[in-house]
């Protein structure tokens, strides 16, 4: 270990990055979510269902697709409880993150709310629910079924 008192240039310039991420290709997902529906894309050519939704098929590269309902029922595949959070989440209490699988369909990662850690088990039935951030951004969480 080095001495903490090693000389350093404490930079007087900060670099702050905050991105505007295009959502034209997934706007139906976010709009359905605002109405409480959880949908994703199904390839018109090969039938592959993707999550996250994408307008180009990763299996056959086809560009034709339809939106299909996924929710709300799913079950927990795996999970964790995050106690040391990133800088941009310092105002959050520790949160449970779970990967949950929809019946016969894709898996989705999100917060699992409304349950204490010791009660969470793989296989636990959950349902997906819509939320909005304080800024009005839509997102989704899982809650016990």
């Amino acid at each position, binding site marked *: *270990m*080095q*001495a*903490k008192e*090693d000389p*350093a240039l404490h*930079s007087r310039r900060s670099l702050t990055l905050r991105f505007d*991420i295009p959502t034209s290709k997934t706007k139906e997902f976010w709009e359905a979510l605002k109405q409480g529906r959880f949908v994703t894309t199904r390839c018109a050519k090969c039938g592959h269902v993707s*999550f*996250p939704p994408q307008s180009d098929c990763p299996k056959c590269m086809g560009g034709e697709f339809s939106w299909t309902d996924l929710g709300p029922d799913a079950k927990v*595949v*795996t*999970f*964790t*409880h*995050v*106690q*040391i*959070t*990133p*800088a*941009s*989440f*310092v105002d*959050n209490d520790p*949160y449970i*993150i779970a*990967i949950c699988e929809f019946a016969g369909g*894709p*898996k*989705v*990662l*999100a*917060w699992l709310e409304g349950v204490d*850690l010791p009660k969470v*088990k*793989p296989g636990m039935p959950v349902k997906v629910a819509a939320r909005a*951030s304080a800024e009005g*951004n839509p*997102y989704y969480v899982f809650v016990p079924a």
Partner: protein
Amino acid sequence: MGRVAVVGVGHSRFGRRTDVNVAELAFESIKQAVEDSGADRRQIGTVVVGSAGGWYEESLPAVIINEYAGFDSVGTMRVEAACASGSAAVRAAANSIASGETDVAMAVGVEKMTEVDTLTSVELIGRAGSYTWEFENYGMTFPAYYALYAVSHMSRFGTTEEDMSRVAVKAHHYGSLNPLAQFQKEITLEKALGSQMVSWPLKLYDACPLSDGSAAVVLASEEAAKKLTDTPVWIKGTGYSSDSANLSRRDDYVGLRASVDASRRAYGASKVTPDMVDVATCHDCFTIAELMAYEDLGFCKKGEGAKMIRDGETELGGRIPVNLDGGLKAKGHPIGATGVSMTVEITKQLRNEAGKHQAPIKNGIGLVHNVGGTGHYAYVTVLSRD
């Protein structure tokens, strides 16, 4: 493909290196590697720098490092494969030789991770998956990524928190034998088990630290290698693979498909089987990662990783000694440096120059396993004395 050998190695002390900037840190390894190779610096036609970047002030690290080290007008680039950036640099430098571009090339791995505060580091690593779908709203962290695997592995195979802590105890034991390691003190199972919870069930002692460090290797074509050294270590076979950015798209959470694929390709290319490996470095950014690596690399069957650590099979004297340099856990994990550091370690082992942590070398074969992210990338390299 022409054969390529490691002919020179260099390695800085890993740790909190507030005494050097990124170029000074890289130079420590570059100088050693050049001197160890016996090559004239002007023979080196390509320098490939492996660094994830973002943690330190310089955004063109390859250029800053080459300027500092006096590599004027050398062919160069930076490569990134997350925590496998170092292996990607070794690969690109080796391909530069095998393709005929140059006879001698250098791969330098470096990261300087302690110039920002810890929670910014947590943020930088957490963003390295699918930002939009798994970070923006959910604040994934690196421990959380691996905790999702740990929970699944525990649930399916009965792996325990104690099994994971055993990996940490082993790592710190070997770290205590490596003067370049970040942590050089042994720890007890109780200390590991009782450490702060980071992302349940992973605790502070399940995780590698944030580190500064560098490593470098000089590589040469068969003809050049034979002129430079009597102890070349050959790149016998390599395998690379990758997996989805979104963890939700993975098939399961009990192993890394990218590691399985990469190791099968490396074994195939080198005509080596796991039982021929004398010594290995496995990517143990978290203790669960080392246990999964035993399984994914075919050192044992799927689900038996915990048994291997319990039985001491990966200790010095065991069936396949793993991470005798302390591993990422105790040696430290300066992201871009790690893959090159592993190559340095296995080269020294195969040269019988590993000092206090030297493994017995029977078949002359060592293996480097380096994972980027949570199996977003995997690079496996089989090295051989002949």
